């Protein structure tokens, strides 16, 4: 901060402050979606498709409508008069196939779990009873499950009217890839399989909608990451002005990307509330969550890496397929995942040439969408695995290989081979810090000794670049209405405390606390004197919410500038009242002081005068004491961050179980506003990455029937299987902003899977086993690799 407060009692930026909201949450006084109830509300339950692909011949709801407690049973025919269908269109993805999507099935279904009919009843239990009484006749159609088979000539079509299952195709090439591979001293290649997993927010998705016909106003409470975006699309789909739509997200029990989309079932609930004129609540149960929340990843990628005789990386070449399910998720499109997975290939390294191609295909499965660290973990695993393979082929230390090849623009900036603009990076510093954090020489000795004693241990590394805090060019140029800017409103209450409102969203990350810290320093008041509201479209300014790790880099910047503006107004008002030049005054800890640090007037007294005794000001002076600041970064499409992770794993030769013994992360997210909370963002992200590497899998059979019925089937990491995670930071400030903050929330997830994958392969190599390039690394896969002696010397 160029103008850090003179004489500020204690800087809040950089302080480890626990979240203020945590007190209420710890006492069970949170207010999550299902804790909110309205008079006359009815409860929703959906009839969902039991099959992956079918034409609906008959949908008879009359018996269900007579079921006890039922208020209505609705189908698409009922909703259509008040609700539009939609297509996911984006100019960022030229040629993107965009089949029509409706909130309830329109004559056919394209995945298990697709909502077909909506029952509204006095309780969820009664609504579920009635769902069982809906009569549904269907003709099952052949389904596409396996992504790599979706483009076969004889593959069934998910959307026959499109004539193909190809949703979009990515291709990029720089340099002479063929020549690089022809000249390479070492070429390594691998076929990678990344299975589907999902976010599993512990609080399921939920929505409560009420319509006031006399005012034409739709009021919605939603467990959502971006209430402003939801407000916009509900307005469009229900043909209401945005001013008639109010969306509130109160406490949100986890997001991770799951709660940032427009889901058919949630639109159906809002349309039903409008039709009925009474409140409708829907809270997904876990089975519904598992089958209808966005899934993530599902890539198959064949990739190779060329290295010269001196161990310099020359080129990467990758060809992938991503299965996105039945539709590209509205409004941002599921293809963002592939875009980022391809664009961030090789990102930590200098490469002369690169080629990346990917087919994004429809399947009769749940939609995929943006899950924490969108696409990056895929690119990171591919790149870092290939780098490890190359280092092994050359017989050298994998860290020496990385150190030699890092792309560090120093004070300048440059582009990666696949087109990312990078700057303000610190790969070497992070690697140095990691080696110190791990006590690497001693650790390696210990690993060697334990291997001698018979343990199957592996140590794996993964460096990464993550693009964060996306700017307005990305969606703006795509024609998709997504706010990359954020706004903070700030006003002084009559007692001198501050009322703040932010367009950001709070899901537990601590964005709220961080914004308060920035505001406190920017204005010159104690954080306890700031009341911050987020997640309410009715009173808060429009903005982006929670995505792309943007809270500190964009929200923090908006808060800083709003705070400085308000501080200027406060000092101007004080100057007018005190008949003193404003430049001679300062605001410190809620007091206006003069150049000698003598208190002249408290902010409370000043505010009281402004609000209740304005006549004391000189004629013509009308202090406002309220500001709004809309912050949009004018340069840089995204802010690159970097870091490196390491994993120590132990394989059990009898069971094939992988045990994570320890994990390390060094990350550079620029200025850290709250080290306590930033560290926990990294740790939480790492565990989601370890979950993906070892356990988590949305399983379908070959015919695209969904096989996970509960959390006993879908494995979420538990405390006893997770390691301690050492976190270190390097702070290389982003030079394009005042605070210099970059994104932190997704870095843990970005490279954790890759580090574990490399560690498991290191362990396998140590005992002469085979290689693995598929996650999750299930016990059968690990056992097969342990027993694969084809590589044994």
């Amino acid at each position: 901060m160029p103008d850090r407060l003179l004489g500020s009692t204690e800087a809040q930026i950089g302080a480890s402050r626990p979240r203020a909201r945590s007190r209420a949450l710890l006492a069970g006084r949170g207010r999550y979606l299902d804790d909110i109830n309205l008079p006359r509300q009815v409860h929703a339950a959906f009839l969902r498709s039991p099959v992956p692909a079918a034409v609906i011949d008959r949908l008879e709801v009359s018996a269900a409508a007579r079921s006890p407690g039922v208020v209505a049973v609705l189908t698409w025919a009922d909703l259509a008069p008040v609700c539009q269908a939609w297509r996911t269109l984006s100019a960022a993805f030229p040629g993107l196939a965009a089949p029509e999507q409706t909130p309830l099935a329109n004559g056919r279904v394209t995945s298990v779990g697709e909502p077909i009919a909506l029952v509204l009843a006095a309780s969820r239990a009664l609504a579920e009873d009635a769902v069982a009484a809906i009569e549904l006749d269907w003709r099952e159609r052949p389904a596409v499950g396996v992504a790599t088979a979706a483009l076969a000539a004889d593959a069934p079509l998910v959307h026959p009217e499109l004539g193909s299952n190809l949703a979009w195709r990515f291709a990029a090439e720089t340099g002479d890839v063929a020549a690089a591979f022809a000249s390479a001293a070492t070429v390594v290649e691998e076929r990678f399989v990344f299975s589907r997993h999902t976010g599993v927010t512990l609080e399921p998705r939920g929505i409560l909608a009420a319509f006031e016909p006399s005012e034409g106003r739709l009021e919605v409470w939603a467990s959502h990451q971006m209430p402003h975006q939801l407000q916009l699309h509900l307005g469009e789909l229900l043909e209401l002005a945005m001013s008639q739509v109010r969306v509130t997200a109160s406490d949100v029990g986890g997001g991770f990307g799951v709660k940032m989309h427009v889901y058919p079932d949630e639109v159906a609930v809002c349309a039903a509330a409008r039709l009925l004129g009474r409140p409708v609540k829907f809270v997904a149960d876990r089975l519904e969550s598992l089958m209808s929340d966005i899934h993530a990843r599902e890539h198959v990628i064949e990739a190779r890496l060329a290295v010269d005789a001196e161990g310099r990386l020359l080129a990467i070449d990758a060809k992938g397929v991503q299965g996105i399910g039945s539709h590209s998720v509205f409004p941002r499109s599921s293809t963002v995942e592939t875009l980022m997975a391809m664009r961030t290939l090789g990102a930590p390294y200098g490469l002369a040439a690169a080629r990346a191609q990917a087919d994004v295909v429809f399947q009769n499965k749940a939609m995929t969408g943006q899950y924490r660290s969108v696409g990056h973990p895929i690119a990171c695993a591919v790149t870092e695995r290939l780098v490890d393979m190359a280092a092994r082929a050359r017989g050298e230390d994998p860290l020496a290989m990385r150190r030699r090849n890092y792309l560090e623009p120093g004070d300048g900036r440059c582009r990666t081979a696949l087109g990312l603009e990078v700057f303000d990076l610190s790969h070497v510093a992070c690697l140095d810090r990691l080696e110190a954090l791990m006590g690497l020489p001693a650790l390696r000795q210990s690993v060697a000794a334990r291997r001698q004693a018979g343990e199957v241990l592996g140590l794996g590394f993964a460096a990464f670049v993550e693009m964060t805090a996306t700017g307005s060019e990305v969606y703006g140029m795509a024609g998709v209405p997504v706010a990359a800017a954020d706004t903070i409103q700030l006003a002084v209450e009559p007692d001198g405390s501050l009322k703040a409102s932010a367009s950001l969203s709070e899901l537990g990350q601590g964005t709220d606390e961080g914004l308060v810290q920035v505001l406190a320093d920017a204005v010159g008041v104690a954080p306890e004197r700031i009341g911050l509201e987020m997640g309410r479209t009715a009173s808060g300014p429009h903005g982006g919410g929670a995505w792309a790790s943007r809270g500190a880099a964009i929200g923090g910047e908006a808060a800083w500038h709003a705070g400085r503006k308000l501080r200027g107004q406060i000092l101007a008002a004080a100057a007018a009242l005190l008949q003193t030049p404003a430049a001679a005054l300062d605001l410190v800890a809620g007091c206006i002081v003069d150049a000698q640090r003598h208190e002249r007037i408290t902010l409370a007294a000043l505010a009281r005068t402004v609000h209740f005794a304005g006549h004391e000001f000189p004629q013509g002076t009308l202090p406002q004491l309220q500001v709004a600041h809309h912050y949009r970064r004018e340069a840089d499409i995204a802010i690159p961050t970097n870091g490196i992770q390491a994993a120590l794993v132990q394989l059990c030769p009898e069971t094939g179980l992988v045990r994570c013994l320890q994990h390390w992360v060094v990350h550079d997210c620029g200025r850290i506003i709250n080290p306590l909370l930033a560290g926990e963002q990294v740790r939480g992200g790492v565990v989601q990455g370890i979950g993906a590497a070892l356990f988590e899998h949305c399983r379908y059979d070959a015919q695209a029937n969904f096989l996970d019925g509960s959390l006993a089937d879908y494995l979420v990491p538990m405390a006893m299987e997770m390691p301690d995670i050492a976190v270190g930071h390097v702070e290389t400030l982003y030079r394009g902003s005042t605070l210099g903050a970059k994104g932190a929330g997704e870095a843990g997830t970005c490279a954790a899977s890759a580090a574990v994958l490399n560690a498991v392969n290191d362990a396998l190599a140590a005992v002469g086993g085979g290689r693995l390039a598929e996650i999750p690394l299930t016990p059968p896969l690990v056992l097969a690799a342990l027993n694969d002696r084809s590589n044994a010397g």
Partner: protein
Amino acid sequence: MSDLGLETTATLACTVNGEPVRAIVPVRQSLVDWLRHGLGLTGSHVGCEHGVCGACTILVDGRTVRGCLMLAMQVDGLAVETIEGATASGRVVALQAAFRERAALQCGFCTPGMVLTAAELLASEPRPSRARIREAISGNYCRCTGYQAIVDAVAAAGGND
């Protein structure tokens, strides 16, 4: 809109957080649904309804149970305690303070169940090892923290940090 007239019901008498309660409940209603929707005790959360995630953890006659795996009627004659009661009595105040200081919660959805589970551990083993803490809370999923901060907080509350 009440659903009681449409359900098979029974009368239930128990204590909840020390207060006697008599209520007519649907016989098929889960304990956690009754606590939340019948009594407004929304501190107990519903995460999976299969007894896996632990977000609905409460105490019945002094022992932790899954509120989603018991029917409300099964606590007839018994004593129920929820996070609201444990908070009011002050018996989990050290854990709550340790969780807060260590940022051992983010979204907070798992937290009430996690605190009650941790309190039960500390009541029987005042100074558990980190491995023992990890084992004891493994029936409670947390999707945000990655668990380490929770282990730290429980260890600190147990005087073993």
